[in-house]
């Protein structure tokens, strides 16, 4: 049947019209002006045309939904009608699948096509196809250009009375692509808020013939079936079923449509032209088809009527998201969101609540952390302040010794200076003044060092943790207390281990601890009746933990009884006549704030040892 049809033939359709087609077109009122129009059109186009084929083909694509042969058989009456009307053409039917239809239109291989309403609207949208006429099917009673669906169940199923009862039931249809045999029914369910694919127990496609569906519902293989409207009536007429055995769900009534109906009516299959097909030819074809009657020769019950609006089909497809309205992943998601708005809003609210909770928790943690840091910082500052006050107090207590320490060089300077003046008056040679002047400079330096030491000790600068050498700090403390120690007739034995690692400490504070401990030892030895007064200052790596240094201040005094030893680091727990009794307590706080420990023990051979440990600088602090 496709013989003679070639792709190359298509552009010549117009030329064919030009070659006297109107001469053989008989019996039409408009013939005269059409002739003029076509002639003119033909003249215009004749320049493009080069070769006129004696017999050209008009190819009609037909949707072969039940196989090529079935399709040819089905549309043969229509083809025959057209062939009769257009003897100059070879009218060819080209059975084609849904996908093939699209490809053929895209390639402009078809002049006309017959397809289902769903496929048509898709082709209309994508390839600018337009329907010429709509199929009229002979149903029970009068021919109808509309199709509808009926959803049926067995009448004796008391559990199925309305569409709402279909949740959890099984549904039978022809196929997913069947318009009257499934899609219309699907649309009805969708409208009723039931998605057959998710809300029902299952959807089964029985395939052709449609009768199977009815039979299986009767047999109870499926709870409900959706079939083209009028099928039941046809079957009943043939005596194969009794209408009373069925319940029509969601019954509808449309004037002029006598079959049982569950859905709105949709237009039947269209006969459409491809975009590129000549309008004049198309009009002629339309006229020929409209004149075809079911009773006409070769009509075989097939007829065409004026085209119906396919808009309802578009709406249906939109709502079902099929055909041209098949959703992309994003659209599916949006649709899903839309349909489950409530749940999503709830989930969103929960997520927001959870987020708020997390945020709130984070905020609280942040706030508490900051408060903790602030309070730690406050505590640190308080300790620093207290330590500073304590240093000033200590310095006050040390004033006598320090005054002596400064007075000595001053006195010495005074002596040299006065003597020099006297010598100059007596006319002594200036060379003799070299020695006293050198001594003056030396003594002034000494006094300066003492003052610097004092200033460094009592400085109230914010003391950051700095790298420090513990031995340097201990030596500084011993020097600061030099006068006091000498006057108290105390011999200092420094046992400072060489090559100790650096500490990361507030140097002034640690020196203060050393000063406090040495002064404490000095006071203890004031009560020492006999024997030499010996102060031992030891620095070493902690024997138990080599990430720590240990400093021990050991005196030869009377030591402490157990009770006093227990409370030695408590504030105001001093039996000293001078001072506030805060020295050891502050030392304790300072060492703890540096991550160290402080201990007091009586020596086996008399006297007290106070030792403290400090972590060595690991080099990873800020």
């Amino acid at each position, binding site marked *: 049947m496709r013989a003679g049809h070639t792709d190359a033939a298509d552009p010549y359709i117009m030329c064919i019209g030009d070659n006297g087609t109107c001469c053989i077109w008989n019996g039409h009122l408009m013939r005269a002006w059409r002739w003029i129009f076509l002639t003119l059109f033909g003249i215009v186009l004749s320049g493009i045309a080069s070769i006129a084929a004696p017999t050209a083909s008009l190819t009609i694509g037909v949707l072969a939904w039940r196989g090529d042969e079935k399709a040819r058989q089905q549309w043969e009456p229509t083809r025959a009608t057209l062939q009769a009307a257009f003897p100059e053409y070879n009218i060819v039917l080209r059975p084609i699948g849904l996908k093939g239809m699209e490809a053929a239109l895209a390639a402009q291989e078809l002049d006309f096509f017959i397809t289902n309403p769903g496929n048509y609207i898709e082709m209309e949208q994508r390839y600018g196809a337009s329907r010429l006429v709509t199929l009229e099917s002979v149903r029970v009673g009068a021919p109808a250009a509309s199709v509808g669906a009926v959803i049926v169940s067995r009448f004796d199923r008391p559990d199925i009375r309305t569409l709402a009862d279909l949740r959890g039931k099984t549904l039978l249809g022809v196929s997913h692509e069947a318009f009257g045999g499934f899609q219309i029914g699907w649309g009805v369910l969708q409208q009723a808020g039931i998605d057959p694919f998710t809300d029902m127990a299952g959807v089964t496609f029985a395939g052709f013939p449609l009768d199977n569906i009815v039979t299986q519902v009767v047999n109870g293989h499926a709870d409900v079936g959706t079939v083209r409207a009028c099928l039941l009536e046809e079957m009943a007429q043939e005596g194969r079923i009794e209408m009373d055995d069925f319940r029509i769900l969601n019954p509808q009534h449309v004037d002029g449509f006598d079959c049982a109906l569950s859905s709105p009516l949709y237009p039947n299959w269209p006969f459409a032209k491809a975009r590129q097909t000549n309008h004049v030819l198309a009009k002629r074809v339309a006229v020929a088809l409209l004149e075809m009657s079911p009773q006409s020769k070769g009509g075989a019950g097939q007829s065409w009527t004026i085209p119906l609006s396919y808009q309802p089909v578009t709406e249906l497809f939109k709502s079902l998201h099929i055909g041209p309205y098949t959703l992309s992943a994003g659209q599916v998601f949006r649709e899903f969101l839309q349909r489950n708005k409530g749940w999503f809003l709830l989930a969103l609210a929960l997520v927001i609540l959870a987020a708020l909770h997390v945020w709130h928790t984070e905020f609280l943690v942040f706030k508490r952390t900051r408060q903790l840091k602030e309070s730690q910082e406050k505590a640190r500052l308080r300790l620093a302040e207290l330590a500073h006050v304590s240093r000033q107090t200590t310095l006050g207590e040390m004033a006598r010794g320090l005054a002596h320490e400064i*007075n000595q060089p001053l*006195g010495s300077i005074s002596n040299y200076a006065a003597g020099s003046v006297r010598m100059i008056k007596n006319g002594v040679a200036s060379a003799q003044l070299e020695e006293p002047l050198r001594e003056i400079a030396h003594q002034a330096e000494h006094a300066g060092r003492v003052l610097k030491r004092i200033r460094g000790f009592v400085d109230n600068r914010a003391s950051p943790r700095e790298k420090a050498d513990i031995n340097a700090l201990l030596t500084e403390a011993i020097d600061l207390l030099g006068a006091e120690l000498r006057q108290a007739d105390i011999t200092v034995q420094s046992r400072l281990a060489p090559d100790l690692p650096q500490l990361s400490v507030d140097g002034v504070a640690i020196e203060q601890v050393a000063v406090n401990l040495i002064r404490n030892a000095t006071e203890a030895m004031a009560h020492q009746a006999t024997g030499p007064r010996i102060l031992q200052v030891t620095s070493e790596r902690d024997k138990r933990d080599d990430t720590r240094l240990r400093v021990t201040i050991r005196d030869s005094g009377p030591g402490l009884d157990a009770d006093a030893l227990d409370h030695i680091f408590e504030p105001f727990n001093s039996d000293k006549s001078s001072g506030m009794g805060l020295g050891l307590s502050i030392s304790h706080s300072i060492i703890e704030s540096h991550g160290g420990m402080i201990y007091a023990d009586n020596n086996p051979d008399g006297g007290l040892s106070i030792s403290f440990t400090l972590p060595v600088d690991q080099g990873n602090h800020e």
Partner: protein
Amino acid sequence: MSTTDAPLIHVVDDDEGMRKSLCWLIASVGLECRAHVSADAFMAGFNDKRPGCLLLDIRMPGLSGLDLQQVLQRLNSSLPVIFLTGHGDVPMAARAFKAGAFDFLEKPCNDQVLLDRVQEAVAEHRRLLAERDQQAELRQRINALTDRERQVAERVSCGLRNKEIAADLGISQKTVELHRHNVMDKMQVDSVAALARIWAQADT
């Protein structure tokens, strides 16, 4: 040894700067000065026969200045002690003066004051040494007297007449006169008044 010998000043101070500068200052006025690091070091070479004085720091490790003063007192030393202190206080000064300190100066003190006091102390020491020498000589003269002569001298210096002395001692007036002549001769005096004076000085 003589009171006319050049004076020697002693400085005892544990602070080297102070010790050295003091000695240097003293030396700058032409006085000999010897510095000692501690009381013990001073005592090791103690000799107070030469005129001079001791500049002594009060607070020192070991024997303190006040302790040293006591030691010197026990030794009946005439060496004047000038205390030097960086932190003098009233009770300490009182104790020092009670124990016979020559002076109590605060460091740093005016060099003129210090040197004046040193000179005065040296003069005082000279005087004391001279006194001591004199007494020693008197004692020597007294020791040269016989027991009878001493008895007579004692009574003469108390203003007794020869007759009373003779009666008291149970010897003849002539013998008293002989003894009296010897006493005046040995004691190198030419009048009863002079005898009475040095007899009191000798503090017999």
